């Protein structure tokens, strides 16, 4: 049974290879090959999951060693897989949601002539992400990590004929490189510190505590911070968040895949997987929570101001991932809830993105919500599924988001002390803002009067429901959005499932769970109510009003790009310029000076070599005279 693990990755990898190398012959069937292989991977995952459920919680770690990749001295890197409960959760999410997105893409990308290639990239994305979560050592994880970066680059820039898409892809890749540096440095640190980077000895297996905690706290903090940097890059956390909004230039299924099943979840996985490191480095953990808290508010505020439906959802993703990172930073109190929120978020965010894609599909690829309005009559299925996703994300009681987010807020308070209060407050505030911006999206898109107009060429959009290949995945995801949270929480199923891997401890919460829930509910109603008053009661202007200072700032992503431009780009330019100056004057000066002096000397010496035999004869004669003189001197002495 354990030998099936490789098959999980092999199926989509094969799909990518066949589709990308197959050429035009596969154009007609490309989407089916890609979808079937993704689904095959999901089937394998389900089989493995069933097998895993049949075993006792202690025996649920499957390993498969394929071959020794690099073995030099005591440096040893293997290609091997480790499938435990944490990986299993991710595998199911990735293959499950991924397969649904494949199915959705069949309809969404129907008219794109480069469809085969698109499905090839999607399969590559899945394969890389699976490699990331299945690797049994950090180096192999890094391979998957880079694969995800590559696939995201290819997919975000899929419509490369649009300069904005090409730029967005480059931006995502570059920002991710910064994070990748963090991961590679962390791996190097691990190797120099522990002599290994395999999960087994490093993080410990069942009953054998790993050696990760043995190093000094300073080193562990350094490793932890580097891992956090890596996670920030992939999961779009402050300060490496700027690529996520621009990544919306990719096709909508790509956005759904990046935000729900792959890519952004990689950072959370990395932190939870490295729990043993973070548990021993409280300073690093604190930084993780701070990053999570800041991103949570940052994403939420940005999401409030965007009129582009996908960018509003992107801000929401940033914010929700912030919740997860915050939870992961809380240590054993929060690991399980971080993953739980990740899974539920995978359902409803995928559903929301697919819904947004469905809306765009019916509206001639219009993304400005100010030109939507009243779409519930035209797209009933999309409206219902999107609505269920909306209720889930704002944490409507009984739906998925309610259970997972509530737990995170409780865990934040349970951190204890001033930190607990601050983090809990931030999480609560985030819940209110989430309710506000999601209600805004909902109202502007589906309620009110219709605001669309003919475009420049006179084509009036004809909103219509999407084909069934698109609506079925949305319906399935809507089911997940509604029931997943409750299913996980009844009897703390998810907690018991994941606890053997991540560990769990109940914090000492200063406020009761009921208080937190009630406070969340109140804030939820307040947030949604404000949004209703703003957008539901009064009509929405088609052109955006100037807005307050904060709104304008949020529209510009809170000046993150400007900040990057001024601090990093300009700073980098100045640094480069000064380095070039130093290079030209000092380094080149020394080099050229040496060359010039040698050249000058040679020029002088060259005159001795005038080619005249008589000149050479003089030298010979002089030399002979000197020899005679030397001989005489020696005899005289």
């Amino acid at each position, binding site marked *: 049974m354990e030998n099936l693990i490789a098959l999980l990755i092999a199926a989509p990898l094969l799909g990518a290879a066949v589709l990308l190398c197959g050429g035009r012959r596969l154009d007609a069937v490309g989407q089916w090959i890609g979808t079937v292989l993704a689904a095959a991977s999901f089937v394998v995952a389900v089989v493995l999951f069933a097998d895993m459920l049949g075993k006792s919680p202690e025996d649920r770690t499957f390993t498969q060693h394929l071959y020794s990749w690099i073995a030099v001295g005591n440096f040893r890197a293997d290609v091997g897989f480790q499938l435990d409960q944490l990986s299993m959760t991710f595998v199911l999410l990735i293959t499950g949601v991924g397969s649904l997105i494949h199915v959705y893409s069949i309809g969404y990308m129907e008219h794109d002539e480069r469809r085969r290639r698109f499905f090839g990239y999607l399969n590559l994305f899945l394969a890389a992400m699976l490699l990331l979560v299945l690797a049994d050592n950090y180096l192999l994880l890094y391979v998957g990590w880079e694969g995800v970066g590559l696939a995201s680059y290819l997919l975000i820039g899929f419509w490369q004929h649009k300069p904005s898409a090409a730029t967005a892809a480059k931006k995502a890749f570059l920002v991710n490189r910064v994070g990748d540096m963090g991961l590679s440095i962390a791996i190097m640190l691990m190797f120099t510190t522990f002599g290994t980077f395999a999960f087994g000895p490093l993080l410990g297996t069942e009953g054998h505590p790993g050696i990760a905690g043995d190093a000094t706290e300073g080193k562990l903090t350094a490793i932890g911070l580097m891992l956090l940097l890596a996670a920030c890059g992939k999961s779009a956390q402050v300060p490496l968040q700027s690529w996520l909004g621009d990544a919306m230039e990719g096709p909508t299924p790509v956005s759904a895949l990046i935000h729900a099943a792959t890519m952004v979840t990689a950072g959370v996985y990395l932190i939870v997987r490295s729990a043993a490191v973070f548990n021993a480095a409280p300073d690093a953990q604190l930084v993780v929570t701070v990053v999570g808290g800041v991103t949570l508010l940052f994403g939420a505020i940005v999401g409030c101001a965007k009129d582009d439906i996908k960018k509003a959802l992107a801000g929401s993703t940033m914010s929700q991932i912030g919740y997860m990172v915050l939870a992961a930073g809380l240590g054993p109190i929060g690991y399980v809830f971080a993953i739980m929120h990740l899974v539920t978020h995978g359902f409803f965010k995928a559903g929301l993105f697919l819904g947004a894609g469905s809306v765009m599909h019916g509206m001639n690829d219009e993304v400005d919500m100010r030109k939507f309005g009243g779409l519930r009559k035209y797209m009933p299925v999309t409206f219902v599924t999107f609505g269920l996703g909306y209720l889930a994300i704002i944490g409507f009681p009984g739906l998925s988001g309610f259970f997972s987010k509530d737990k995170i807020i409780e865990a934040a308070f349970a951190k204890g002390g001033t930190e607990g209060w601050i983090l809990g407050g931030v999480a609560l505030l985030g819940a209110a803002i989430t309710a506000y911006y999601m209600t805004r999206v909902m109202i502007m898109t589906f309620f009110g009067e219709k605001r669309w107009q003919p475009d420049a060429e006179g084509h009036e959009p004809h909103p219509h429901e999407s084909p069934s290949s698109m609506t079925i995945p949305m319906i399935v995801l809507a089911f997940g959005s509604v029931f997943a949270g409750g299913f996980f929480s009844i009897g703390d199923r998810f907690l018991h499932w994941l606890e053997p891997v991540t560990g769990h401890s109940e914090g000492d919460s200063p406020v009761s769970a009921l208080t937190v829930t009630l406070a969340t509910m109140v804030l939820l109603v307040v947030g949604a109510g404000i949004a209703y008053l703003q957008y539901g009661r009064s009509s929405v202007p088609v052109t955006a009003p100037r807005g307050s200072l904060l709104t304008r700032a949020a529209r510009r992503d809170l000046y993150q790009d400007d900040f990057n431009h001024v601090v990093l780009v300009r700073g980098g330019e100045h640094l480069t310029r000064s380095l070039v100056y130093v290079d030209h004057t000092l380094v080149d000066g020394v080099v050229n000076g040496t060359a010039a002096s040698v050249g000058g000397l040679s020029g002088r010496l060259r005159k001795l*070599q*005038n*080619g*005249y*035999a*008589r000149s050479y*004869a003089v030298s010979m*004669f002089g030399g002979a005279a000197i020899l005679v003189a030397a001989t005489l001197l020696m005899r005289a002495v």
Partner: protein
Amino acid sequence: MNPVNYLYLAALLFTIGATGVLIRRNAIVVFMCIELMLNACNLAFVVFSRMHGNLDGQIIAFFTMVVAAAEVVVGLAIIVSLFRSRHSASVDDASLMKL
């Protein structure tokens, strides 16, 4: 008179010949100066022969003459063919070794 004076004369002739080689540009004259140097050496050998009381020095001088004869034949042939191709007997014109 001490016969050593012959050696001084040989040294003087040799030096004059060497300087001539360096000063003159006409290949033929240069060659003559070389012959002068060889003759100076021969004189020294003959005087050495007298000094040591055996004939070995004279033998060496004899061989030097033979070699000089061979050298002159080849050297003059070279000068003639050089003159044919370059229309000049100047040693400075054969300065192709210069950059």
